[in-house]
């Protein structure tokens, strides 16, 4: 670990390749610590915000929960009927429990990538370890919440997610702030390991504050026949958010799909994308992004597909909807083929709402505003996530109560 620490220290001032540079020293590390408790016993205002990012107290609809408030872990439970199928704990506890965790630590994300990865190493504030055991099908989603309740705090978490061979699971991660929080920094390192024949669907929902900076750093390693689906939703204003997760399709026939729906509002600066590296035969990748920009929002929608092996295939699709003349959407798709049998493609379309569509709905009696709202809502259709029906409906309701109400 000390070697990691050394590398991290060297990178402490290294700016990220993308996104506005942040002075990481301006944030506070001072916060009270929270006692462990079931999430149903958390304060009402915390619960309400957590609910908006998919975190629910109901035992019936989740198989396990991790909840971190500021720098304290308040929940780390697996429902009794899922014991022996999945493990949920803080990465600090997992580090004590499993000596082998070092084989996963900083293995797909580089510790010295930039000042944010450096920060996550030198000022590490927990994060979750979630492991789905071999051949286990966890039919209810696991959930993890990273919550910030102290203004101007930095929260630097490091998560490790391991889907052991043959396992199947859903993980929802909700990241959000207390209504009283305006500024702060969230750095989230997430390293995913999807083993042979495993399937992991990860759905991340972000809901930040107008003065908040966010720098997730994620990567996934997918083994033979493994499937990793990574969904991302963000529909509240944020000061700046920059992330560019990478999935390495390392095993034969391994697959990845990144789907995101972004709604940029007010002065939000959002720079997100996904990289797919196809390293073996039969690997498949898909990157789908739906971006909406209104007010003065600036959105960069990136995608990078790299084909390193014959008989690999990936597609990138980016659709952007511009709702304001002061907003901007910049779609940047990149394809890099390094093997002649690799089949890479992209399509991107950015523009305003089609008048023809609005008029069509007005001809059915909708007012212009209703028609516009319906089209925007349709544009954010969460069915692209390919989630089980119950979860899909749950997330659709969430989009309705948060994003649609802003229209």
């Amino acid at each position, binding site marked *: 670990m000390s070697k990691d620490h050394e590398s991290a220290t060297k990178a402490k001032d290294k700016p990220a390749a993308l996104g506005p540079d942040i002075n990481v020293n301006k944030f506070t590390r001072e916060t009270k610590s929270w006692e462990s408790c079931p999430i149903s016993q958390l304060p009402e205002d915390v619960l309400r915000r957590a609910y908006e990012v998919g975190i629910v107290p109901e035992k019936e609809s989740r198989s396990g929960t991790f909840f971190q408030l500021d720098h304290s872990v308040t929940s780390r439970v697996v429902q009794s009927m899922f014991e022996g199928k999945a493990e949920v704990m803080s990465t600090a506890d997992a580090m004590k429990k499993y000596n082998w965790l070092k084989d996963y630590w900083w293995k797909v994300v580089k510790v010295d990538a930039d000042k944010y990865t450096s920060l996550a190493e030198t000022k590490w504030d927990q994060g979750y370890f979630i492991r789905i055991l071999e051949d286990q099908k966890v039919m209810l989603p696991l959930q993890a919440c990273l919550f910030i309740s102290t203004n101007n705090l930095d929260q630097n978490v490091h998560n490790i997610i391991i889907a052991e061979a043959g396992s199947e699971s859903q993980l929802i991660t909700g990241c959000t702030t207390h209504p009283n929080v305006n500024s702060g920094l969230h750095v989230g390192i997430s390293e995913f390991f999807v083993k042979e024949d495993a399937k992991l669907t990860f759905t991340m929902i972000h809901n930040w504050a107008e003065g908040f900076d966010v720098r997730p750093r994620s990567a996934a390693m997918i083994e033979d026949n493994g499937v990793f689906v990574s969904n991302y939703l963000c529909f509240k204003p944020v000061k700046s958010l920059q992330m560019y997760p990478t999935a390495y399709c390392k095993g034969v026939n391994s697959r990845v799909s990144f789907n995101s729906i972004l709604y940029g509002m007010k002065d939000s600066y959002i720079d997100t994308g996904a990289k797919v590296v196809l390293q073996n035969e039969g690997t498949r990748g898909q990157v789908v992004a739906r971006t909406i920009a209104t007010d003065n929002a600036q959105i960069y929608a990136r995608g990078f597909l790299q084909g390193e092996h014959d008989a690999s295939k990936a597609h990138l699709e980016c*659709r952007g909807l511009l709702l304001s003349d002061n907003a901007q959407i910049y779609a940047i798709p990149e394809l890099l083929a390094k093997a002649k049998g690799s089949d890479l493609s992209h399509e991107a379309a950015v523009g305003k709402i*089609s*008048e*023809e*569509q609005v*008029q*069509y*709905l*007005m*001809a*059915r*009696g*909708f*007012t*212009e505003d209703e028609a516009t709202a*319906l*089209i925007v*809502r*349709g*544009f*954010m*259709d969460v*069915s692209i996530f390919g989630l089980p029906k119950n979860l899909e409906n749950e997330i659709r309701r969430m989009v309705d109560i948060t994003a649609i109400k802003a229209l």
Partner: protein
Amino acid sequence: MNILELQNVAIEVSGKKILEDINLEIPEGEVHVLFGPNGSGKSSLLMTVLGIPSYKVTSGSILFKGKDVTHMPINERVKLGMSVAFQNPPAIRGVKLGGILDYLVTDKQEIGALMEKVKFPPEFLERDVNLGFSGGEVKKSEVLQILAQKGDFVMLDEPDSGVDVENLKVVGNLINSLLSEKSALLITHQGHILRYVNADKAHVLIKSTIACSGEPVNILTQILNEGYGWCMKCPKITNLQQKQKISPLH
């Protein structure tokens, strides 16, 4: 009483004159047919009556149920009882056919009955409207939405185009039952739909105006036998062309 009345209407699109001198009266309860060659402006006329803003009425007025609607927004005309089946409706991602029907009809059972009427399986409600619909499905979906709207004046833009023989019968019978208690303006290029629909009067739109009006069957027979070339020889059109030719000299 006339449900729709166009008085000396002239229309421009992007500054270009599309239609002029349009006079049309549709009495309540009647079904009128609009014939005309491709590009004669049939759809433009419908879009103007509906109120699509890019179709600018430069003179004349449009009366619907006696009310001047010339400058009224689309949805307000619809509220008064107008409805349209589009020829090429846009696909809208994420907007489900079922979502539109839910807006139009509150009774779920009624939606089921309507779906059955157009022979759509219930799964169709979950489809994004018009996305990947076949020609026949588009027409059926348009008729379905009009049925749900319950307007008393219906405009149908080529409900028979792109429909195969099997579906033409379904669509034709549907439209005939739809129109039994309504007033309508029906555009047809080839007239196939008239095998199923009883129309009261036909008009021929040619060279950007209505050249003649009369018995639907007579006019259709004439068009089928002689083609629209015959209409071009109509004195009204030749006079109009004469007028257009010499007008710059004035």
